[in-house]
């Protein structure tokens, strides 16, 4: 009886890694593994949402004052951009499942563009203005409006913290999508089937969901 590396008997599907028995087990495992990761990310952001909700409840008026400085238009643009990128990502998965590589790459590229647009709007239009107006926490902070500067600074701490962390996740998504596109282009065996695209899609949709909640909570805060 052989003792080493030859895998189990019968058919050996090329797409299946050695630890799995068949393709279905592999795909199911990857999908629920990715869901585990997404759940973990939800816990990560969830704690931040809790901190935000707590402070908003305590300092509603001051937070409302600060929220007035946020530009709803840019927020809406970003939301639309991100929703579109989610749509194109879902399309990319659709085409990957149908093995239409050219369309898949096109959709992935469009997702990438949207993501970059999102970051651009955020950094160039929104954050830059905040830096100019000295709304950024730290020694440069200077608040001229009404409301307690301390609490306003807390608002901006949360704002920069949460949108910043979200932005980091968008950046990570850009990198991962870029790598996926590159590997697909070069026909690497590991991206031959649609599963890697689906997994990247799951991550990307999660990033979108975080923004879906960030947008109303920060930009559309009622009085």
């Amino acid at each position, binding site marked *: 009886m052989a003792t*080493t590396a030859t895998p189990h008997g019968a058919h050996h599907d090329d797409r299946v890694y*050695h630890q799995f028995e068949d393709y279905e087990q592999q795909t*199911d495992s990857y999908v*629920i593994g990715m869901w*585990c990761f997404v759940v973990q990310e939800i816990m990560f952001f969830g704690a931040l949402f809790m901190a935000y909700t707590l402070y908003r409840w305590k300092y509603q008026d001051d937070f409302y004052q600060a929220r007035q400085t946020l530009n709803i238009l840019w927020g809406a643009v970003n939301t639309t951009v991100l929703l579109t990128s989610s749509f194109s990502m879902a399309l990319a998965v659709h085409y990957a499942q149908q093995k239409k590589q050219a369309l898949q790459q096109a959709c992935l590229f469009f997702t990438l563009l949207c993501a970059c647009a999102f970051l651009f709007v955020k950094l160039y239009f929104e954050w830059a203005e905040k830096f100019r107006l000295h709304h950024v*926490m730290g020694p440069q902070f200077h608040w001229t409006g009404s409301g307690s500067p301390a609490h306003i600074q807390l608002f901006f701490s949360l704002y920069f*913290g949460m949108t910043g962390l979200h932005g980091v996740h968008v950046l990570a998504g850009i990198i991962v999508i870029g790598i996926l596109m590159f590997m697909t282009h070069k026909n690497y065996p590991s991206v031959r089937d649609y599963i890697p695209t689906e997994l990247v899609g799951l991550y990307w949709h999660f990033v979108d969901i975080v923004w879906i909640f960030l947008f109303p909570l920060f930009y559309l805060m009622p009085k």
Partner: protein
Amino acid sequence: MSTKAISQEETSHIAERKNYLNNGSSISSWLLTFDHKRIAFMYLISISFFFLIGAIAAGIVRLELVSPNGVMLENETFNKMFSAHGITMVFFFLVPSIPATLGNFLLPIMVGARDLAFPRMNLLSWYLYVIAGILLLLAVFMGGVDTGWTFYTPFSSLYSKTQVTLAVSAAFLAGFSSILTGINFIVTVHKMRCPGMTWDRLPLFVWAMYATSLIMILGTPVVAITLLLVAFERVFSIGVFSPELGGDPVLFQHMFWFYSHPAVYIMVLPGMGVISEIMAAFSRKRVFGYHFVAYSSLAIAALGFIVWGHHMFVSSQSMYQGIVFSLVSFLVAVPSAIKVFNWTATMYKGNIDLSTPMLYALGFLGLFVIGGLTGLYLACIGTDVHLTGTYFVVAHFHFVMVGGSVTAFLGGLHFWWPKMFGRMYPEFWGKMAALITFVGFIVTFMPQFILGFLGMPRRYHLYYFAGAEFQPYHIMSTAGSSVLAVGLLMPALYLTWSLKYGEPASRNPFHAVGLEWTTQSPPPTENFDTPPVVTWEAYDYGEMEAHEAHLDEAELEEGGEAKKEVEKL
């Protein structure tokens, strides 16, 4: 009863057999391996290294406490010592210990798989751990941290002048290492069980690892973001916990303990899984109340998430919320007690074999019960007001973590050592080490209960205000710690020795039931020569003789073939 060792003849062809250890010997075959067994071995070396660091820090702390006016350290340095001890032991030893070493090694074999679901992610886990460890060492060498392992704000976020950012980054990365391990385990248990391995036939160790992984995935991200916010506050002035901005430092405590309480169950549940296995094997009896033990692991995981406030009774937390936390803390003791009763019932009318692993398991039973019961004093708010922040708490958690987790880890290490490395450890020295550790541990930590009750605060460097009263207990504790150190050092020495000079082990030296005992010692890279199909219940010690005879026959056949191959060369 056949012996654990084997004949000279069999020795030679066992040594010749290809297994995961001799399947490739270059550095890259180890550092770039995807084999869960090799990764487990690398984890074993890394966590042992960090255990040494943490133990040295502990030794220095204990030395320092011998005198009410301190011995050789400045106050700041003392703070850095206990912080280093805590951070290293919690994040870099206890959390990964059993899951990353025994879990990584055994989980796939116990479910009958060839590897974990995501072997590459497993390797990534290890690298994250190593990088985190390097960051921690960097933090220590660049001055250390003096906030305690709990990093309470606003001291850690605003006022401490030590390497807090580095240390929390290290803990952050170590957290992600454990999250990835958790994901791997959950998917493996759900998806990669071999034919016939239903949930009801899984070893209780697997149930324990599953519950642990649930906690890892759901709890660790929260402490990750909490520590990240502390780092952000120090670097970017993002003052979420800063009182000057209206933030609440107690919010940090809520978020921190939301993970750190379940974290202690991450530390103890795997240990309980190990004890279930050892109890069955060395009582030669199935575990009493299998389903109760299995579901109690899940219950501990679930209840463990809603008790975190018992670390915060005196923190200005609402008294009413405290009552809720107190009630649930009492409840969470119940599943643990269920397990203890079941293990005791397992031993009843069993055929007890007092080998080294069983000695550790018995030690666990006693020490964990003491630790758990003293936890109830702390769960009760009234007594907690008196005991919190004292050495009573320190003694309580050392009983459950050292007397519990570390003892179980050592027991499991000895139990599965022959399987992992194909060598037996010296039984006499094993028993000696178990006894010395037990005695040393009790002498170290029992006096601390009394100290705490008398009022000695924890994390205090000097206690001249009650020197005469406290000093005898401190001296006793330090004396005990030196015995404990000997007891813990011994396995490090003889286990390493046995790697080269120990008696070669047979496939099933302890005649235990379990899939891991059906494959050779050490296992081949693919774990099984033929994929197993399970038709027997867990801990089927009744049917064992017939099954073992069948396996022994197969082995002799195989041995004969291998012998022929060797002769051909």
